[in-house]
């Protein structure tokens, strides 16, 4: 078995994360202004406001998306908001439905009245534009096949104008399409719960107010959990997260030290 230096770096990461997870220790965290803004936004919505929660992610990013989505749904249901779930990537469909049902049960919310799930629409740009024309025409039936006009929550919901906003739960750049097509053409207020990787992508949109608020990553989920005072898997992963960051920093430093040492050797020889 031939091991290269990269194998050792792999092994080191596995050890660091496994030990951190097994320790079960949860560090104290501080809340960032971004997360606070989202929390205030949801707090500010009057009871009964209708929100679209769009599950715009693949199944593979579930480890990061689930804590975010659960924190959002818990907060929204506890504020008695009415939620309309949809999915613009096929793999998010089942996940979104499962999460909504699970959290709705925690708050004894009723399907059709407090929340509905309209399911998946392919071709996301087309779907976003189409909903700007008519939501019931875009989704004539919900996920389980009931006609949308028989769902009490959907009465009076015709276009984005009848909603308080859209929150995209995303692992990629799909939220950009919400901003550019949904927000840009129909003026709907777009916010996001996204993976940490997407944070810097959305910065210009936050700065230009094209996006209203954003919570990013497992860390964002942990912060949100702290704000709504309900623990979740965001907080459970925080020690491992911090340790893995430190591990990467350590490797970068070691890599550079080796680089400079070898450069000096090269020069002196």
């Amino acid at each position: 078995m031939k091991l290269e230096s990269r194998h050792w770096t792999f092994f080191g990461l596995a050890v660091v994360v496994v030990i951190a997870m097994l320790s079960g220790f949860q560090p104290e965290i501080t809340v960032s202004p971004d997360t606070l803004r989202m929390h205030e936004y949801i707090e500010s919505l009057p009871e009964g406001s209708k929100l679209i929660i769009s599950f715009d992610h693949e199944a593979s990013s579930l480890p990061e998306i689930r804590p975010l989505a659960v924190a959002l749904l818990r907060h929204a249901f506890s504020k008695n908001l009415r939620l309309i779930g949809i999915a613009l990537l096929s793999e998010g469909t089942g996940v979104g439905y499962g999460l909504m049902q699970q959290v709705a049960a925690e708050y004894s919310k009723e399907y059709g009245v407090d929340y509905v799930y309209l399911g998946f629409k392919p071709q996301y740009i087309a779907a976003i534009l189409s909903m700007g024309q008519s939501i019931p025409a875009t989704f004539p039936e919900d996920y389980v096949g009931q006609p949308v006009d028989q769902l009490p929550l959907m009465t009076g919901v015709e276009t984005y104008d009848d909603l308080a906003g859209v929150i995209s739960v995303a692992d990629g750049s799909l939220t950009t399409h919400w901003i550019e097509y949904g927000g840009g053409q129909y003026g709907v207020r777009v916010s996001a719960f996204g993976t940490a990787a997407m944070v810097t992508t959305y910065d210009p949109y936050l700065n230009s107010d094209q996006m209203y608020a954003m919570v990013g990553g497992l860390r964002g989920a942990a912060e949100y959990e702290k704000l709504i005072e309900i623990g979740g898997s965001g907080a459970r992963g925080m020690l491992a997260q911090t340790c893995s960051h430190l591990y990467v920093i350590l490797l970068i430093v070691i890599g550079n030290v080796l680089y400079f040492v070898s450069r000096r050797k090269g020069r002196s020889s």
Partner: protein
Amino acid sequence: MRRKVPQFVCALFGILLFALYFSSHPLARALSQLVLVEYWQIIFAFTLLVGVVSFLKVNLKSIERGEDRPYRIVSLMGLLSMPIVAFFWGIKGGTPFMWIFENIQVPMQSTVFALLAFFVVSASFRGFRARSVSASVLLVSALLTLLARSDVGGLLSEHLPVVADWVRNNPSMSARRAILIGIGLGSVTTSLRVIVGIERTWLGGKQQ
């Protein structure tokens, strides 16, 4: 004819959809809907069929030649199993289709995704060298972000997260904004060239 007709169709749809953007008349909106929702999706579905047939062809040929036979067979079985179980039991929650999706596809996909954590580590170790001024800037801003977004950052100095946020929201954001503007312009010119037929790569490139 082999080029002119598609070029004409391309121009027609391009001009139509461009013009429709500027109208909020219901007819205009309905028309753009029709193209964007129905035409796109239906055409895409057929191209997927073409793709699947090509995938089958490549695999069957390999099996015939005896290359990677067991693996190709597994691939084909995986591919065929999904439509079969969907046909018999449907695709809603709790069906065998969803079981395969949730317990075979999703865990493997998430794990391929999780491989990234390891590749990030090896890339950091190997590639993140302060070789030049700009490489050092890259290094420092990455380290700053990593430190600030783990809990150690706040312990080292309370200013660290504030500085990191400022860097993210100002210099970093401005570069991203310029990239956005640049790509926006690139997209506009390319799209225009496609519509008027200056850009024909999609038809197989330059004419012989």
